[in-house]
């Protein structure tokens, strides 16, 4: 294993600490990549060491779990003495794919699937068992993706796009696109009935009416309304009504 890989991997865990709208995750990726650059032939005095950090600390964005892939690939090209303009083109070219693949793979696939599995276990067994299932399942995929990304980026260097277009990434995207909505679909009725188990028949009907009304508002009437705002609107209205209804 390349010296500095473990330090770089650990630093990817805080890659978004300085996230901002000017450079997004650029500073974090440069910080994660730094341990990989220490063995450049001229060490820290090598002009490419500071040049690479400066370049990567500019604007950069990617899914946080795939930032290691960028750090590995962008460090590798420094060892291969790839001309700076070409290294910079690689940096800019990685922004789109690392963001969209990560978002689809994790935020729209693995996370909802893991949440649904955790919630189903929670209502069928116990909630602590659901929590452990969720954290275990999710983080197996999460940490594996971080580790693979860093190693693949370092291995592939300038050819990192080939790794990103690999067969298992496509398989993961296809699996997530089917498994996430299916598992969410299974989970919703189970969790709904579990949450309402201590309510009476009338309250269950009222909850169903509120759910349909909320769905109508969020899908048709005000599609831009976020979930937290819709929830606040409904729950605070009910609180005021409940307060007045003494």
């Amino acid at each position, binding site marked *: 294993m390349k010296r500095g890989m473990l330090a770089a991997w650990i630093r990817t*865990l*805080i890659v978004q*600490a*300085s*996230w*901002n709208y*000017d450079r997004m995750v650029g*500073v974090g990726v440069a*910080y994660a990549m*730094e341990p990989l650059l220490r063995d450049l032939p001229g060490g820290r005095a090598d002009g490419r060491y500071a*040049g690479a*950090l*400066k370049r990567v600390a500019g604007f950069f964005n990617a899914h946080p779990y795939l930032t290691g892939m960028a750090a590995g690939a962008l460090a590798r090209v420094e060892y291969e003495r790839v001309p700076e303009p070409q290294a910079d083109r690689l940096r800019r070219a990685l922004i789109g794919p690392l*963001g969209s693949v990560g*978002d689809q793979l994790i*935020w729209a696939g693995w*996370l*909802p699937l893991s*949440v649904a599995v955790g*919630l189903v276990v*929670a209502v069928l067994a116990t*909630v*602590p068992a*659901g*929590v452990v299932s969720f954290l275990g399942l999710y*983080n197996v995929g999460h940490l594996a993706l971080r580790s693979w990304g860093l190693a693949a980026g370092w291995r592939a260097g300038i050819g990192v796009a080939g790794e990103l277009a690999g067969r298992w990434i496509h398989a993961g995207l296809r699996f997530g696109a*089917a498994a*996430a*909505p*299916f598992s*969410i*679909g299974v*989970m*919703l*009725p189970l*969790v709904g*009935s579990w*949450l309402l188990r201590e*309510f009476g028949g009338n309250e269950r009907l*009222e909850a169903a009416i*509120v*759910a*349909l*009304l*909320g769905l109508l*508002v*969020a899908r048709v009437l005000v599609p831009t309304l*976020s*979930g*937290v*705002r819709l*929830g*606040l609107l*409904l*729950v605070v209205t*009910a*609180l005021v009504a*409940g*307060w007045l209804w*003494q």
Partner: protein
Amino acid sequence: MEGLWWLVLWGTVAGLDLVSLGQVMLGRPLVAGTVAGLLAGDPGAGAVVGVTLELFALDLLPVGGAQYPDYGPAAVAGAATAAGVPGVLGLGPAIAVALVTGYLGEQAVQIVRRGNAADVGRNRAGLDAGEVASLRRMQLHGMLRDAARALLMTLFGLALAALARSWLPLSLRGAVVVGTVAVGAALAVAATGALRLGGRGTARVWLAAGLVVGAAWVLAR
């Protein structure tokens, strides 16, 4: 409030996990609420609050620079509100406290991001020279800023929880109505998120198939 300092610590950790540290999903409401219930001495209440808030959290995908509520400290505050309250009577007020805390957490994240952007300006010379000290300083300051945000949001949420527990004048019937609406709203938000996730093409078929299986499972139990 039982386990107050543990709740403060846990809320801060859950808030940090949202973006800055690890993103291992300790801040998901299912996790944060359940653990907060244990710390507050009422695991059952924390579990119900955590599961309900998890439905709210399914509304969105935290892509790119999206703005999203911070449900970690919110779930801690919600669990603290419901702890020790019999049956479902604490659920409605708990969800109200959690949603207010989560919403304010969303706004607070923007303040942290603006603070990080200002840090870029202060460290521009070092960043442009490729100095690792500037990178380290920015990461450290960003993390401290986010930790302070998570701590403040947790303290705010717990203060709101204490206020709701001691002051909120709800009758028995009123508390049940608020709880009913909270569950209905959570289901509406989760259904909206599900339709957004699986609302097109073959994903819609998978979502519909899942709903049929889930409904059959409920009827069969």
